[in-house]
């Protein structure tokens, strides 16, 4: 590269002479030596009269404590009303049930990415280790991840006996589906696609590439019971077999 990476006060250091002074009145002049840094009446008056803009007035969000902040409680209804409107709006934008689920998944995805970081950050470096096995990360998702988001662990974690890359997280009482009645002509729709997106975002960010879908599998006493089906990318299985 021919350009100077750091612009010196003169075009080139070798051209500096003892008579050169920097334009601003400041700066170390190697041709003069340490004396160029001394404070004179001229330089101090420049300092005092310099017009500045404050860059640090408002406290930035980075100054807030994120790791041991006291949890703030709000009304579940606020989330339910927001989610109701999200489904309503997404519904109006989509071409069919599958498209609607894809859009809900996408909205959840970015939440999963962020929540993973947040929870891992709060766990702290000392207690934290990177999960390398599918089963370890799934225990985390089913356990403390779920608890941070929904206030409880998910009900079950299962592995498919037939398909090696399929796992399931089962939630008997999905929080967001609590008030939603799926009309008959939308029989296949499960708004849990949003939560599936959260799981997918978190797992992808943790390096476990996966596809997650939500399916209604009602049981006695649990009409809204939802199975989150996770299909891991083959690369995860190959990695697993090497370790």
């Amino acid at each position: 590269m021919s350009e100077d990476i750091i612009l010196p006060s003169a075009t080139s250091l070798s051209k500096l002479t003892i008579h050169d002074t920097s334009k601003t009145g400041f700066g170390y002049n190697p041709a003069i030596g340490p004396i160029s840094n001394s404070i004179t009446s001229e330089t101090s008056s420049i300092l005092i009269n310099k017009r500045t803009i404050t860059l640090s007035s408002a406290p930035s969000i980075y100054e807030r404590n994120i790791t041991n902040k006291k949890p703030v409680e709000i009304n579940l209804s606020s989330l339910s009303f927001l989610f109701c409107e999200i489904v309503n709006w997404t519904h109006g934008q989509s071409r069919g049930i599958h498209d609607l689920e894809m859009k809900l998944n996408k909205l959840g995805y970015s939440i999963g990415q962020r929540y993973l970081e947040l929870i891992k950050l709060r766990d702290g470096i000392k207690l934290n280790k990177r999960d390398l096995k599918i089963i370890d990360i799934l225990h985390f998702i089913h356990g403390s991840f779920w608890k941070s988001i929904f206030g409880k662990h998910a009900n079950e974690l299962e592995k498919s006996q037939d398909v090696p890359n399929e796992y399931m997280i089962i939630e008997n009482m999905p929080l967001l589906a609590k008030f939603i009645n799926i009309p008959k002509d939308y029989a296949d729709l499960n708004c849990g696609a949003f939560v599936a997106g959260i799981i997918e975002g978190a797992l992808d960010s943790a390096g476990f590439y996966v596809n997650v879908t939500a399916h209604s599998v009602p049981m006695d006493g649990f009409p809204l019971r939802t199975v989150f089906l996770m299909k891991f990318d083959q690369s995860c299985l190959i990695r697993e077999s090497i370790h």
Partner: protein
Amino acid sequence: MLYSILILNKAGGLIYQNEVNPGLNKLSTNDYLVLAGSLHGIHAIGAQLAPNIGDKTVPASVEEFNRNQNSSIMSTFKAQSPNTNRSGLQNIETSLFNLYIFQTVTGLKFMLITAPNPAEHKGELNKQYDMAHELFRQLYMLYSDFVMKDPFYSLDMPIKNPLFDTKVRELVN
């Protein structure tokens, strides 16, 4: 014994009807709509006819009553009844059934049809009305949970929602 629950929208249209216990003769859908519309009309006319109905024991004006109730809720954070039906038709007593009408600030009406009072309690309609109050409040909360938070429900339209039906049945039985 509660026979039937009706919910009317602001315009007097019937949006929900649930026979929670058998006992009443079945009406056709159209008859239910007429019943709802008629009661809605009578309720409103009643309010003009006798502006002091239901006000006998409360000396304070409505404005003062409302203000007191609001400030009490704000200072104590304790829930009060959401019924605002003061001067409209509140109840009907017949020898075969009783009917109670509640109304919200937004203009929704909840109507409850019950078995008649036993002979020894005839003429205690106001007392019965107060007892039906709590049921109305619970129904209103179920409505705000399972109807209002359902993205597939359009406002003011008939409520066809098995989940809500289930919750209503759980409440009354």
